[in-house]
């Protein structure tokens, strides 16, 4: 049986309020992040640098090293 401490009952309103405020804070930061990212415009201009495969950057000795390891 779980007996709730009297303090918890007394501070329930305050705790719920603090919880709601923290939730609102998270929502604000998340919303602000979404708005800021969307306001950047076309995201492909960033992806072209970060996500496009560039074979010239792959080390030439990598396959040999992998075979040697086997």
């Amino acid at each position, binding site marked *: 049986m779980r007996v709730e401490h009297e303090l918890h009952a*007394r*501070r329930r*309103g*305050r705790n719920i*309020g*603090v919880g709601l405020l923290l939730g609102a804070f998270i929502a*604000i930061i998340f*919303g*602000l992040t979404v*708005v800021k990212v969307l*306001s950047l415009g076309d995201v492909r201009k960033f992806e072209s640098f970060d996500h496009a495969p560039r074979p010239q950057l792959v080390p030439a000795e990598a396959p040999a090293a992998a075979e040697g390891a086997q």
Partner: protein
Amino acid sequence: MTGFRDATGAMNFTGAATVARTGMNGHTMSDASLDSAVTAPGEAGLGDYFALLKPRVMSLVVFTALVGLLAAPVPVHPFVAFVAILCIAVGAGASGALNMWWDADIDAVMRRTAKRPIPAGKVAAAEALGLGLALSGFAVVLLFLATNWLAAGLLAFTIFFYAVVYSMWLKRATPQNIVIGGAAGAFPPMIGWAVATGGVSVESALMFALIFMWTPPHFWALALFVRTDYGDAGVPMLTETHGRRVTRNHVLGYTLPLVPVALGLGFTSIGGPVYLAVSVVLNIRFLLGAWAVWRRDETQAEADGYASEKRLFRLSLSYLFLHFGALLAEAVLRFYGLSVMPW
């Protein structure tokens, strides 16, 4: 029953004063000679912490800041605008909490403020200080991240101005405290404008000046007909330090420069015929009201129960609200392409 109520009230008051003192000095409450149930801070609810933020002052701050933001020629994303106004409101609330922390001793003396959370013993003074500092940091940093450094810097300066310049330096030192301290209440539309434009302009400076020049006649009209206990708390008020005749002179003296400031705003890019029409009517009435307050003496004022002073104070409330409401109306008309601006 009356005796019991009086005794309880007296005990609560003493306890509250003890809490305020000990909290301010950072000592424990071991010196309290009263019942601990009376001297210990009560179980503060969320509402008590909210009361520290002076929500009524916040509502005026929110309204004027919103008008400053919407009147600006640069559109702001609605969510960013919401966060910005929230930050300005929280910043204003934080300065209110810092003000209550610093003024806990005089709040306990005055009847109007004795029920505030700190003198009432619900919130410890140190808690108010912590809340004020934390919310100040939160509001300024978030406003910087959401908008720009100028808006955040202006908000930080406003908090500093209200908490330090007004509360700590001026309030107990000079009867001109509300004149200079009024600047803190005048900054919000300038911050709202900076949120949108990232700068300061004639328009935002005039919005600042409108509130700044409006504060003295608004406040001193009230001081003429309300008997306050600021004197008991050691706060110099013009009505008591220089007399009521001088206060009447000051009411008219500050109304005269207020009129061109208010009308001048109508000829800027955020003004227009709607604003000017509203402003002309309001300023004629305000000038006549200030003139009526100035030209009579105490005997005449007492004879009709300070009717002119009360009328001027009521008018001052709608004066500011309608001026900013007219600016908002002009912004809405511009948004829909309905503005008729010959200049």
